[in-house]
């Protein structure tokens, strides 16, 4: 078995190659959220179009809902927005917008131009709620169940595929859990 030790470099190398090969199909910058299956962080924010009225996290308990983080300065949001508008018309799940680090006027104008799929939009001017939700790249979306637990995070814009294969089935499952049929 003297020859065994001489094959060690080759063996280690081939193991390494396997990992490198796997790495080609992974994105080193796509970071999964640590908030999955944890309670959605609390917030109390004013609505974008009604500065007086505010919405709290606990107001949302009892229903499954989607939180979509957007901004008027965000280029990728424009790609995603038509999909969201279309999806909102299916009336499967209420969508709430989180206008992240934006100006009220700019945010409202953007929604007026590109369509408003949201039940309401929350105004997160200084981005603190965004930080609490671990937002680092806009757009991002969170699917939250009736008990207020985050069950899914979409990093980056929605694709039709993601909506069809991931979002809709999960929405249906969560609603069944909550007792809505």
């Amino acid at each position, binding site marked *: 078995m003297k*020859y065994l030790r001489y094959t060690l470099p*080759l063996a280690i*190398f081939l193991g390494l*190659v396997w990992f490198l090969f*796997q790495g*080609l199909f*992974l994105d*080193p910058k796509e970071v999964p959220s640590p908030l999955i299956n944890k309670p959605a962080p609390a917030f109390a924010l004013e609505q974008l179009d009604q500065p007086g009225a505010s919405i709290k996290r606990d107001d949302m308990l009892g229903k499954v809902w989607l939180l979509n983080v957007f901004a008027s300065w965000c280029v990728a949001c424009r790609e995603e927005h038509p999909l969201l508008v279309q999806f909102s018309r299916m009336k499967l799940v209420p969508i709430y917008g989180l206008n992240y680090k934006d100006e009220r006027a700019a945010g409202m104008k953007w929604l007026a131009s590109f369509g408003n799929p949201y039940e309401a939009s929350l105004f997160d001017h200084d981005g603190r709620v965004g930080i609490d939700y671990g937002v680092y790249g806009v757009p991002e979306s969170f699917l939250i169940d009736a008990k207020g637990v985050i069950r899914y995070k979409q990093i980056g814009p929605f694709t039709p595929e993601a909506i069809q294969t991931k979002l809709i089935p999960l929405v249906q499952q969560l609603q069944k859990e909550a007792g809505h049929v």
Partner: protein
Amino acid sequence: MIPELGHFALWLALGVALVQGVLPLWGAARGRADFMALARPSAYALFVLVSLASACLLASFVRSDFSVLYVASNSNTQLPLPYQIAGFWGGHEGSLLLWVQMLVLWMVAVALFSRHLPQAVQARILAVMGLVSVGFLLFMLLTSNPFDRLFPAPPDGRDLNPLLQDPGMVFHPPTLYMGYVGFCVAFAFAIAALIGGNLDATWARWTRPWTTVAWMFLTVGIAMGSSWAYYELGWGGWWFWDPVENASFMPWLLGTALIHSLAVTEKRGSFKNWTVLLAILAFSFSLLGTFLVRSGVLSSVHAFATDPRRGLFILAFLTVVIGSSFTLFAWRAPTVGLGARFALLSKETTLLANNVLLMVAAGAVLLGTLYPLILDALGLGKISVGPPYFDTVFLPLMAPTIFLMGIGPMARWKETALPDLAQRLKWALGVAVLAAIGTGWLAGSIHLLATCGLLMAYWIICSVATDFWERVAPQGKGFAELRRKTGQLPRALVGMMVAHLGVAAFCLGVTLVKTYEVESDVKMNVGDSTTVRGYRFAFKGVQQIQGPNYDATRATIEISRDGSRITELSPEKRVYRVQQNPMTEAAIHPGLTGDLYVSMGEEVEGGAWIIRVYVKPFIDWIWGGCLMMAFGGLLAVTDRRYRRKAAASAQSANLLAQGATP
């Protein structure tokens, strides 16, 4: 027309490389002198063709031919000429061409300077290099053609990334590549020896100078990159353990191990398998580095724009080259002889221990660099591994390595006695400890970690001094005798001492700057001043200026000490017009005992500016130490024994060829 010519030259080069890669190897296996004789002419032809392609790309840059996609992506009419030239290697495709250009340069050097080698050996070496070039040429032609056209041609280019518009950019990549790629020569020598079965001390003697020269270039290349980060990035750091930095550092560690291992094999014929393995490993890590930087597998500021198809190609190439090398090794290594005998405690052992430590260091860097990828591939989540990890893990490995640096040169070949060593080195150790503590006391504060770092540096200096003294001590015959003996020292020995002193200088620089550097961020109005470490920085004024391809706000800071003016620094905040990125240009006053470093922060209300002032003691010793290391290598390579041996071997090779017995 010119880009098409360059493209055509690359295709022709591929053909020649295939010939060079296959026929001489076949010829060496079958004893066909005509095939073997093809190796050198092919290498020359390959050099001409690749250089032609490079010239075409360079011409496209200088002529600002934006119908070439690569030129349009990396240049601009307002870009100053030196950076238009450096744009050649500013992106992925061009830097690949640079890689191949360096490879053919080394090929030609091997073809020219190894006439004393037996023909079969030379044929194999050039063939292996030819095969490597086939891989890179194919990669370029199939996935990364620098001569792709862009129609319609835009009126102006996208400009070179402003971070790269700097003298460092002009020299850093070519120097670095000369080093990386140069390890291909040692690799080719190793493969040739494994195939031909002539792995012996003579092989080590041939391989050594090539390895040392490649190592020199890599040392200088890395030092340039580090110093460039220091003055260009504006926050005074010089090493971040970024994946791409690590990709160049790992071959360096292995190359250093290889140089020392070759010493053992050359002198004593021992541990040949180990040396051959190291030669394969050093170049393998160069190739691995190429993969890591271009495949998108790791996230880095240095990484080129990525494409999974490219990553796949390089990985396949990597697997073929390294896999077949390791397979060859597994097959042939068991047949290699053991070399000469040596005792458990001997110079050979210290050099081998040095090897083990350097290998473990390279392994640790590899582990840290790839671990996030490994965890992700196993579905175990995403983590980051950064400077806190590497600093914690790497420094403790360096301490024993440096300790050995003092002992190794003093140990004797074959067998050395511990009491003898201890006796000879006790003064060195004592002086080093005192000097380390003394330096801290002089500097005003003593810290444990700093004292350790200083101790390492002084240990090297004192042991080199001891070694030197042992060899030239005049024994009562006076100064003339001392001078005579110094002059008689072999240049390679002096080279070793200088290189080791370079390491000491490096350690001194790192320790002193990390322990005693001062940063001060202040808010300044025109006319204000701040005092740091006795230096007074006075904010004289701000002005708007226009550079060739940027607009800038320039501040003028006057520095004085004890009332006398030292210099005036002009940091800038630039906006490059084409890509519209903001950039901070720091201003540095370098000095033997430290740098004064000033950069501009933001403008605040009232017309005041945030100004960052750093005093960095002895920081230039870091890069000065690297240059010393490289200079030591140069001395070693120009030792008379190489020049004489080459002549003698050429003579005996000639005699052999004429049929006479030597």
